[in-house]
């Protein structure tokens, strides 16, 4: 399979996902089925993964593999610290661990780390992870000469 066909299929899957999201969020409001949206997302990612394996004209070698690996490791190193810090705060909130001085944090943490906000925070963290990965990938691609040009 050619690279362009792969991008076309990814575009079609993205459109199908958007349609599913739109249908279950906007149209069928009375039928509250978040599970279908979650399942659709997982199925879409699995399809993309298997289609990606069939692409033949993507040039990958040990240098590009190293860039991907380094970017992934660095993203993980930064992300787990942020995620852990957030999780500690969330767990403290769920378990009602007393804070000192109590009056100081009382109303802020209730609103910030309430159950409804958790989903938004997770989505935000996911976006952060994505941007971290892109930033590290650009950094390592530059470091390992991705944008080098011939002088002669």
């Amino acid at each position, binding site marked *: 399979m050619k690279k362009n066909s792969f991008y076309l299929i990814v575009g079609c899957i993205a459109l199908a996902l958007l349609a599913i999201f739109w249908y279950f969020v906007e149209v069928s409001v009375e039928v509250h089925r978040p599970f279908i949206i979650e399942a659709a997302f997982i199925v879409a990612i699995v399809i993309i993964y298997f289609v990606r394996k069939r692409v033949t004209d993507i*040039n990958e*070698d*040990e*240098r590009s593999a190293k860039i991907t690996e380094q970017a992934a490791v660095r993203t993980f190193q930064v992300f787990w610290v942020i995620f852990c810090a957030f999780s500690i705060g969330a767990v403290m909130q769920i378990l009602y661990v007393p804070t000192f001085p109590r009056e100081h944090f009382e109303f802020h943490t209730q609103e910030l780390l309430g159950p409804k906000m958790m989903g938004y925070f997770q989505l935000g963290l996911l976006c952060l992870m994505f941007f971290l990965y892109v930033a590290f990938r650009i950094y390592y691609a530059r470091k390992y*000469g*991705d944008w*080098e*040009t*011939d002088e002669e």
Partner: protein
Amino acid sequence: MHDLTQEDLAQAIGVTRQTILAIEKGKYVPSLDLAFKISRHFQVNIEEVFVYDEAVLTVTVD
């Protein structure tokens, strides 16, 4: 000397042209496997292509 373009060499040893360019410029240190492939392509010993320096690896093929 070998009348070979970076693209030709890259195709012959199964990497991208950018990787050959990065090795030439010292931006990327190849694996032992790739280093052997390059030296075998030129039918020379690996020490004639790559020079091991404590801090920097240099490429010596023309």
